[in-house]
């Protein structure tokens, strides 16, 4: 195979590839004007190398071939107006196409005339001879002179054209190329979709490259009437043929140029690969064969078969390698939806905010699927579907009729919005969705409820939705639902964390409100214990130092638990502390506290409170019990006195009346104050610890130091409640806030406990 043969082979192959491309593009979407124009353009371009190959191998040097047969080659020049036409409608029809469509069609006229001319007047010398009619026909009359003059002008023009047609039309072609590139560039500038921009850029660069090579190799030499070495010219032609169609094929495979389906893209890749591999194979077989033949020195059938078998052995693994390589490079890219799903889900599953999710999905879909507009419409708590405002913050309701949502819920797959009306009993459904330009609705279903819709408008440049798109959208819909769930769980977790942090601070504040030190009185010892059931509690105790050996003692329990209860006792504490310093009687203080609290809380909330004033000099305790568990005064002889005088619980009845009680301490007497968290602590059989048991424990431990009494009491309560094996079917017992305050009058001659 010599260089000429190789060039012919490459020409032939590129011509074929261009035809194949044209057929694929046309078959993929014959309804789309763009596809038709590109197919026509590529077919015309294919004629050039194809006919050049035939010319080189068959016509060149042969005798007896009519000149017009060789001139059939000029059909390919129609490529230039086709290129102009293409550039006027790609990727979207441009103003020139919309306003001067005729002009674009007229652009074909010069080339049609040229073609007719070179076909009909294929032998210029003969025609030029014919044109010299004046010498052959005698002058008939003055009248005909005018006609002849006219004819002369026409014939001179024709003669000029025939002599210089190559140069003249090369100029026209150059002009077309420049115009086409200008149009493509102005169209490119208007594109917003990044991926579309990418593919258009690639196609423009491809055409620019191919045309540049062609201009340098053919048009410029033709215009300047110079000759370029034929090898150089062929090299430029081959390069142009590889660059031009190659970039278009690349754009189709890599960037979905012209909306070519995945299968078609794959087959395109494989056919080009196969063509290259088979071409290489044939080349090697032929070369190897001739080399071997020259060594062996004879032509043998056996040798030929042997070569083919050997080559087949090598061919298969090589083909597999190339196939693998091509699959890796071309198919496992963005063009492949499985890849797309993977990257998509990776992206959206890490988004934890609904609005960000909507933005990301919208942007990615527009980029990856060439969709003009894609929106997620979430359904709010009122059942309203909301959609983002275009270009702005916030969202707006979009009407989705119940019939439509019901239909989508039952269908569960991406649905064309035009289907909605077909299921309406009367009237048009999905009106607003369609009016906003949405063509597809993907139902987002969570727990058998339509939680939202993914709405998609038309694709750019007239691309259609394919079955692979629908499958992809269906999968994507499921991923979005999972992402929505994630976002919700994340928001909940975040909220919970925030609440916990706030509660931790609240607990700190509440702990700070409790007395930091125990009161120091000469005749009394104190021990306290407090444990909220939650972070913050509704129990509290307080000591108010009033001087002169007098001490205010408070224990209280707000109804309910947690933050509401904590807020109530914080307020109560402030009121009691301020009221206690006015020197009022305990019952007057309680009346005031009750009035204050009643004003500020609802009647179903209340607090129980015991307030007492201990006077060290008289050893007396004046007290008022507002509905609180009776504090127990344990006398030296083991008798128990309940401190029950006072009045109603606080906060529910603003006009409640309170009375004052008084008890006297003898040395060794014990006052045990507690909240119901202690007395109502239950064991596994739902029996309460009870006031009686508290009294019994107090009697039992009454001679011990006050700290020991306190801790032993708490231990007893906790042991009572401890249940290593809860019975099945019983709900875990909710523990209330627990508070215990013990005051002991020092025994005569007894030592103060250290601690």
């Amino acid at each position, binding site marked *: 195979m010599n260089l000429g043969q190789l060039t012919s082979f490459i020409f032939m192959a590129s011509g074929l590839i261009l035809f194949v491309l044209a057929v694929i593009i046309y078959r993929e979407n014959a309804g789309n004007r763009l596809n038709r124009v590109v197919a026509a353009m590529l077919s015309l371009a294919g004629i050039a190398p194809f006919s050049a190959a035939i010319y080189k191998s068959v016509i060149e040097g042969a005798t007896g071939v009519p000149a017009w047969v060789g001139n059939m080659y000029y059909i390919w020049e129609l490529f230039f107006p086709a290129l102009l036409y293409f550039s006027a409608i790609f990727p979207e029809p441009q103003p020139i196409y919309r306003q001067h469509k005729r002009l674009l069609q007229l652009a074909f006229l010069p080339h049609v005339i040229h073609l007719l001319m070179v076909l009909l007047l294929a032998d210029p010398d003969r025609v030029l001879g014919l044109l010299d009619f004046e010498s052959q026909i005698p002058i008939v009359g003055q009248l005909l002179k005018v006609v002849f003059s006219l004819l002369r002008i026409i014939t001179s023009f024709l003669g000029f054209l025939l002599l210089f047609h190559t140069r003249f039309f090369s100029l026209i072609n150059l002009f077309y190329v420049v115009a086409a590139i200008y149009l493509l560039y102005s169209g490119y500038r208007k594109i917003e979709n990044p991926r579309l921009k990418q593919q258009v850029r690639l196609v423009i660069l491809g055409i620019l490259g191919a045309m540049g090579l062609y201009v340098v190799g053919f048009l410029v030499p033709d215009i300047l009437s110079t000759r370029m070495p034929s090898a150089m010219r062929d090299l430029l032609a081959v390069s142009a043929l590889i660059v031009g169609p190659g970039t278009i094929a690349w754009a189709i495979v890599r960037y979905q140029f012209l909306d070519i389906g995945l299968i078609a893209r794959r087959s395109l890749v494989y056919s080009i690969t196969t063509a290259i591999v088979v071409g290489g194979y044939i080349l090697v077989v032929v070369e190897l064969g001739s080399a071997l033949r020259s060594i062996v020195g004879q032509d043998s059938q056996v040798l030929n078969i042997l070569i083919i078998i050997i080559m087949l052995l090598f061919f298969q693994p090589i083909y597999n390698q190339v196939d693998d390589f091509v699959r890796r490079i071309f198919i496992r890219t963005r063009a492949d939806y499985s890849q797309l799903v993977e990257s998509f889900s990776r992206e959206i599953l890490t988004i934890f905010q609904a609005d960000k999710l909507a933005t990301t999905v919208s942007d990615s879909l527009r980029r990856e699927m060439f969709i003009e507009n894609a929106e997620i419409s979430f359904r709010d708590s009122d059942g309203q579907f909301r959609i983002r405002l275009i270009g702005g913050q916030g969202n707006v309701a979009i009407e989705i009729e119940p019939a439509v949502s019901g239909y989508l819920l039952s269908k569960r797959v991406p649905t064309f919005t035009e289907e909605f009306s077909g299921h309406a009993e009367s009237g048009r459904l999905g009106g607003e969705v369609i009016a906003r330009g949405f063509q597809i609705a993907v139902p987002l279903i969570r727990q058998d409820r339509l939680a939202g819709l993914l709405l998609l408008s038309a694709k750019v440049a007239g691309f259609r939705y394919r079955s692979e798109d629908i499958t992809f959208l269906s999968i994507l819909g499921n991923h979005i639902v999972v992402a929505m769930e994630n976002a919700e769980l994340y928001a909940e977790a975040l909220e919970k964390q925030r609440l916990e942090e706030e509660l931790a601070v609240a607990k700190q504040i509440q702990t700070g409100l409790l007395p930091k030190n125990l009161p120091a009185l000469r005749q009394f010892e104190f021990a306290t214990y407090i444990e909220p059931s939650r972070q913050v509690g509704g129990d509290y105790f307080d000591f108010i130092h009033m001087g002169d050996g007098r001490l205010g003692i408070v224990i209280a329990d707000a*109804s*309910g638990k947690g933050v509401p209860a904590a807020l109530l006792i914080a307020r109560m504490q402030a009121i009691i502390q301020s009221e206690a310093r006015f020197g009022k009687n305990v019952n007057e203080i309680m009346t005031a506290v009750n009035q204050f609290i009643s004003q500020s809380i609802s*009647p*179903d909330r*209340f607090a129980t409170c015991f307030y007492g004033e201990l006077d060290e000099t008289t050893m007396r305790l004046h007290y008022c019990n507002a509905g609180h568990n009776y504090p127990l005064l344990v006398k030296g002889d083991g008798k128990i006195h309940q401190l029950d005088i006072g009045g109603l*619980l606080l906060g529910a009845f603003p006009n409640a009346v309170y009375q004052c009680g008084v008890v006297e301490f003898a040395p060794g007497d014990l006052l045990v104050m507690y909240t119901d968290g202690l007395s109502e602590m239950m064991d596994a059989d739902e029996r309460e610890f009870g006031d009686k048991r508290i009294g019994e424990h107090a009697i039992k431990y009454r001679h011990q130091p006050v700290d020991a009494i306190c801790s032993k009491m708490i231990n007893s309560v906790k042991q009572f409640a401890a249940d290593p094996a809860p019975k099945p079917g019983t709900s875990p017992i909710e523990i209330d806030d627990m508070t215990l305050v013990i005051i002991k009058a020092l025994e005569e001659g007894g030592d103060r406990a250290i601690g």
Partner: protein
Amino acid sequence: MKLTSREENGVVILEPKGKIMGGPDATMLHDFLHDLINQNKKKVVIDLSKVEWMNSTGLGILISGLTTLRNNGGELKLASVTEKIESLLTITKLITVFENYDKVEEAVKSFS
């Protein structure tokens, strides 16, 4: 808590059963009393014989029921209070606020 009700001589008798503990119980009883007021039924007896226990929220429900009815010119009376709840009412001194009858019939009769 389960709640049943019946009417006798223009007096609505509520019969809660189980524990009155707040949460949904509170809402249920609260809504029920409000419905009664809307229907202009303001004489209510709560039969507490089947109530094993109530916590502070349960007490709050009773108090708000009483307040609501009184503010609307009605009255809430208690009947058949178990020993345990009676002690609760005693400690909180609520026993002084609620009219309390041993038997439902007595409570109903007291309205006429």
